[in-house]
């Protein structure tokens, strides 16, 4: 039932995202165009070729990219929160996004292109540096205290984030040219990316999502702590690495195509959890649907609020996300001291 709602929410968001913009296209036209694209047949006569072109070449890739990025971030967030037993965890607060971004910026800066990887160099490096950041963070926290407590992880995440952020700034300062481009990339955007980016993110998204879905029950067990999960028969060492890898894969893929878009991974799983409960069998798919729909709508807002100027999408998610983050922290503190 919930899953159906999620699907419908996503579809509606996509249709709305495609139809609304500087040039409004009636819903039925965009539906028709979509339908023809999926099910090849004659384009109905009442749809102008311009509309079709706008939809298929500009808006659809943009909306799909937003959907994929949103889904990736929300899934990664849900997985991090479950694994770390901590509703405040997400790729952004943990510094994984920053790690991925640093990797991406370095690739851009040096114009790197690894053999065999070709155009996949950027996402691969980005994913890898995100994963390394995460391992580094968890190693650091474990070094401070064995229990991996909520507060320490968040604090360490902030330290890591700002450290990596300053490294990124350093790289940008060295760049000189293209300053504006990199900065706007960093603030997060899904505009003018085209289909290439979708094909770039899609394989990573699929692998990452499959890894996480395959571990939905293990995530439920891990919420009760590693020790307990073990007694329930979960091979915790292996599963934890798989989950971290899956979540880093999703984060890195999302960052590599859209820059750092914060708080989606925090807010969406949290709200979804309020709706459907903490069971990851439902939480993961619902977070995916809600995250993609949410980012499609956010992107829509980013490009229409002060059209024709576009806001960076990361600004909007941060404007929504930061207060929610604050609220969560407040609530958690209060329940703890009670």
């Amino acid at each position: 039932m919930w899953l159906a709602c999620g699907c419908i929410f996503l579809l509606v968001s996509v249709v709305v995202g495609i139809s609304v913009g500087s040039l409004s296209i009636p819903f039925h036209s965009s539906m028709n165009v979509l339908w023809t694209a999926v099910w090849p047949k004659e384009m109905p006569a009442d749809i102008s070729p311009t509309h079709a072109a706008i939809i298929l070449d500009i808006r659809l890739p943009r909306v799909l990219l937003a959907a994929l990025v949103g889904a990736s971030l929300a899934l990664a967030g849900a997985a991090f929160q479950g694994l770390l037993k901590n509703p405040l965890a997400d790729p952004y607060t943990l510094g994984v996004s920053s790690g991925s971004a640093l990797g991406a910026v370095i690739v851009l800066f040096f114009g790197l292109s690894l053999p065999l990887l070709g155009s996949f160099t950027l996402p691969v490096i980005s994913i890898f540096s995100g994963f390394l950041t995460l391992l580094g963070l968890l190693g650091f926290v474990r070094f401070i205290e064995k229990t991996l407590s909520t507060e320490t992880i968040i604090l360490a995440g902030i330290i890591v984030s700002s450290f990596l952020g300053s490294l990124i700034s350093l790289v940008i300062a060295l760049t000189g040219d293209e300053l504006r481009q990199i900065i706007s990339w960093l603030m997060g955007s899904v505009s003018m990316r085209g289909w290439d980016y979708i094909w770039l993110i899609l394989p990573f998204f699929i692998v990452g999502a499959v890894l996480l879905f395959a571990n939905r029950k293990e995530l439920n067990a891990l919420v009760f702590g590693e020790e307990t999960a073990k007694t329930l028969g979960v091979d915790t060492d292996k599963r934890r690495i798989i989950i971290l890898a899956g979540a880093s894969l999703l984060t890195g893929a999302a960052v590599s195509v859209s820059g750092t878009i914060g708080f989606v991974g925090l807010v969406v799983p949290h709200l979804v959890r309020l709706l459907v409960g903490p069971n990851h069998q439902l939480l993961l798919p619902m977070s995916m649907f809600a995250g993609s729909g949410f980012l499609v709508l956010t992107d829509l807002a980013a490009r229409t609020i002060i059209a024709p100027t576009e806001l960076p999408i990361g600004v909007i998610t941060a404007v929504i996300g930061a207060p929610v983050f604050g609220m969560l922290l407040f609530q958690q503190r209060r329940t703890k001291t009670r």
Partner: protein
Amino acid sequence: MIQVKNVTAGYGMKPVVENISFDMEAGEILGVIGPNGSGKSTLLKCMYGALKPDDGEIIVDNKRLGAYTQKNIAKKIAVLPQQTDVAFSYTVRQVVELGRYPHQKGWFSFQQKQDEHIVDKALQETGVLSFSNHPMDSLSGGEKQRVLLARALAQEPDILLLDEPTNHLDISYQLNLLDTLKDWSKTKQLTVIAVLHDLNMAAMYSHRVLLLEDGRQKALDKPSVVMEKNRLEHVYQAHLERKEHPSVPSPLITLEPSSDTLERKRENVLDSLSIEKTPGHVCLMSPFHWKTFSSAVVGAGFGWHRYFVNRHVDKDYACDQPKQEYTAYLKKIGLDIDDTAAMMTAARLDDGAFVRMAGDNHDVFVYATAGTSNAVDVSKSYEYYSMNHTAGTINLWIFVAHRLSEAAYAQIMMTATEAKTKALMDYRIYDPKTKTLATGTSTDSVLVAALSEGEEIEYGGTITPVGKTIGKAVYDAVSRTLNHYLKRRSGNEI
């Protein structure tokens, strides 16, 4: 079922547990006890595969534990953890469903009908079915514990491990939990290994007990054998006392505060007793508690008392519930019932006799009241008397300024009784019905009170030093009160 062979394990260079070995049968309950840091939890971790032994092996169903996958271990062994807080609010049913995890195959397995059935059963058997859709964090500690137990049960294990399962639980929940486990060990042949903090719980519920000290196996046997006073005192570095449980055949361990926290007592404790006489009763008061053993109406058996009351009641005193009536009386005269041992007598309190006698190093104080109208020859009583409770006639209080063993209490009662009987004989008291010499009266009562500290007197028989003093003192006191009694009687007759 499960064999632990010379297991040594730890986290670093120094092993936390060393050379532990035991075998368990299906349906057995093993209690693991030992002070903090003795390696109880570490041993348990080895048993569910969370910690690899550095040396030795654990064999479950004829196969090394290390050869099992984590999932297959979970099919055989379930663990009930100490209370854990969970970040997210799962419902009770979701928590219990996790117990089916080891039985589900494949990456994309879904809940089967059979799983659902087993979960339902587990919910029912632990009594949490009625709130199976409630969120976990809305439950009380005891309820949460039961949910976790249901989860363990849903694993359908052969072996259940518990790590201090009764921590933070009210005693009713503790008993409830352990009763349930005991029941399952019988009906499901569930093997239970429980780390228990509470020695008495371990004694009552375990078939065998494993005592650990500094990671080494100190003892492994039936609770009554393992829980020996000196051994426990040594391992736990605490003063404790072992008694037998009043209602089940298991040892009962009681703790004692170190002696300097007890009140200091005066050199000559008997001097601190004060006597208050009113027409209705005689009350002996002490500034501290005496450990008493008596057949008094109020405060019978072993107890701690500082007020001792002998109340005069009419010869025809009849009351269905003398204890309740007496309690009300004591309340009226302002005494704390818990601190009071109280007797009744139809004899005149004026006839009572106080005797104080000094032994070598044990002063004795005896109080007696006597009347002989109900005198009985106990050797003939089966021929004549029907059961008939009335107020006591010869009441004896014996205060010994020393600490006594339980054996000494029993022997002093015998010594005192013999001395009393001898006095009755010397005064030629006859059983009015059998016309033979009486050995006592039908409603005699006796109280022995002694101190709680100092050196212990082990025996109180008739030729022990204390027995001699008591024999003499009781004989004198009973003689004197009989003397008063008989004099007054003969005077009245004239």
